[in-house]
């Protein structure tokens, strides 16, 4: 999945990054929050945006990069149109989450953490979303699909455009 990502226009990047930095008062203490908001703008963290954040905050790019790669919430590659997060929390695990993930992987043809070639799906795992009564479950574009069984997965994927 090492697709070459096209360079973004710096002016366009800054147009999105500047308001975020403004909102956080150019406070480098808020770096995690800043990157979350930047990611919300782009759907991922483009290289150019990381450079812009580092320059504007006056901190080392290496520090921005280390934070961006440390936390699970951040992605340095573009994500698909639909985000599928299979909950792998303990409650879901004991109710067979591994089997659900496996079915998603074989059905889409990618592994957890990857994005499909056509940019349609990004498949991820998540620690626990705290909706344990519904387990096993998947968070599909921020909506919960609970009480999953392997036979429900194909219809769920087919429903998406």
């Amino acid at each position, binding site marked *: 999945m090492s697709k070459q990502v096209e360079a973004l226009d710096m002016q366009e990047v800054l147009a999105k990054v500047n308001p975020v930095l403004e909102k956080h008062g150019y*406070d*480098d*203490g*808020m*770096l*995690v*929050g800043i*990157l*979350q908001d930047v990611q919300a703008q782009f759907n991922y963290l483009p290289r150019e945006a990381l450079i812009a954040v580092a320059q504007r905050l006056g901190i080392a790019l290496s*520090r921005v990069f*280390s*934070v961006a790669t*440390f*936390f*699970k*919430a*951040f992605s340095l590659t573009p994500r698909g149109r639909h985000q599928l997060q299979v909950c*792998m*929390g*303990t*409650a879901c*695990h*004991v*109710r*067979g989450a591994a*089997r659900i993930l*496996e*079915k998603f992987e074989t059905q889409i043809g990618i592994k957890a953490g990857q994005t499909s070639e056509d940019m349609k799906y990004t498949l991820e795992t*998540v*620690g*626990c*979303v*705290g*909706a*344990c*009564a*519904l*387990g096993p*479950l998947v968070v599909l574009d*921020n*909506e*919960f699909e*609970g009480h999953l*069984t*392997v*036979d429900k997965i194909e219809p769920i994927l087919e429903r998406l455009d």
Partner: protein
Amino acid sequence: MITRLNATQELEGLRQQILASRNQDTLRITVCCGTGCIAQGAKKVVEAFKRELSAQNVNAEVAELKETGCHGFCEQGPIVVIRPQDIFYKKVQVEDVPKIVARTIINGEVMERLLYSVPGNKKEKCTQESQIPFYAKQERVVFKNNAYIDPTSIEDYIAVGGYASLVKVLTTLQSQQVIDTIIDSGLRGRGGGGFPTGWKWQSSKDAAGDIKFVVCNCDEGDPGAFMDRSIMEGNPHLVLEGMLIAAYAVGNVSEAYIYIRNEYPYALKHAYKAIEDAKAYGLLGDNILSTGFNLDIKICRGGGAFVCGESTALMASIEGKVGEPRAKYVHTSEKGLWGRPTVLNNVETLANVPVIFEKGVEWYKSIGTEGSKGTKVFALVGKVNNTGLVEVPMGISLREVIMDIGGGVPNKKQFKAVQTGGPSGGCLPESKLDLAVDFDELTKNGSMMGSGAMVVMDERNCMVDTARYFIEFLEEESCGKCTPCREGLRAIRNILMDICSGKAELEDIDRLEKLCLAVTEGSLCQLGGTAANPVLSSLKYFRSEYEEHITNKYCRAGVCKDLIAFYIKDNCPGCVLCYKACPTWAIIYNGKGVPVTLIQDKCTKCGACLDVCNLDALEVRSVYDNR
């Protein structure tokens, strides 16, 4: 229209005013809008109520709709409770709403169909919440108001006596008296450590410095735990009030932080709203209630790292750095955020604080055991009938929580173990079910309280696989700073995987134990320090299962794929349940009354058939067993 309160006595005036503006005869339709119920369609039910109330001309004087926080009984969501009669409707769907409005709201009838009945006794219906066994044995202290108030309404919180504890503290107690009260109450940290809260506050108060911080930890990373989220989501002002009291007690605190997981959108939203409203009323910000006390609370969103539940890692993350823990030769209570004395408390701990001042120390101390006072909220999940949040007095037995409140294990399966304390805790077998649940008893038996996840497992759960699951989780979440944790966990995982796939030898169990000791002793923070618990506790209580994997190459739970094969027994009546569940079409239907056929080549051993079969018509054998 919010008018700022300029004196402490104005709060009570405001409360009276709010109560007077509310008609006591108005029916209150409370719809649980906790994450669990929302996931099951609660927001759509709310919309349907709005539509129907206006369509059927029910005005606000007759019935008022309220979106509340989590009621706890997630298994039965979406939950609707009609007050003051406390009529409890379960699994309410949009289609039910017109009938509820017409029959219950307008005509005062109870709809039998939507009532809860105890499993196995369909005829006996519970009309009220208090009749349901799930609620009857609970003692709700922290969670009490969750099901009554709208978390986005500060007026609701004030109406039930909110912020009165703050006023009491600000007007009648010196900061040292506040700390003494908390020490006396015996309150211990609910995030897992169980450290006495009062002593923590004392240590920050005694530390030198004119700038100090209070931080609330809502980075609930424990898989299977969601009580902190539900408190923050359902009653955020209770947490703010606890933080205000903590800040006053420690002194020199003018800034506080709440660190919330970004995966908790509603908790975030409600916390932001609560801060904004509290500021507008002058209960937060500069010169609170004109007493000269200042506190500003900011929200930090977590980036999704389990290790950030660790105090020093969490603080590094707030400072905008990578969430790596540091050695705690000096405690964070003396040198924490930006090197300043910092009190870090968990959400549930802080939520206990206002209650202690409201009801009094003696009352609080009367609940619980010698060493653990008060109540604890547990997330009861996994193979249990009544999944949900339960708040029980410390000292209750595991059996009461799992069997009475939780309703036991579903689908006639056999109880095997309960895992408490999350990835740092341990698995306890049936023989330990009469154990009293408190900080000390659980630790003595090789598990721990942790943040309060309680995962029930049945005969279909493999203990080696469970240990592997936790170690894999921790290996992934290890920040990688120290070698014993980073490399040790990987080595432990490799051995566990060998056991699961039948490649291990008996000596590997000894190696496992030695490695566990090394990781425990050699790690800097508690992630590594407790990481071996899931392995050690399952070795302690379920050693025979490990040995069975190694010597017999057999997984009795039918989980470890490399070791097992499924066979259809002669008693199979061809009921097609397994036929329908099989994702790979490996089961062939041979007609009613005739056993189905399983084609081994097509079988991926996912176990879906075993999960649905309730006639004991499937057998798990070792692949090496050529019967």
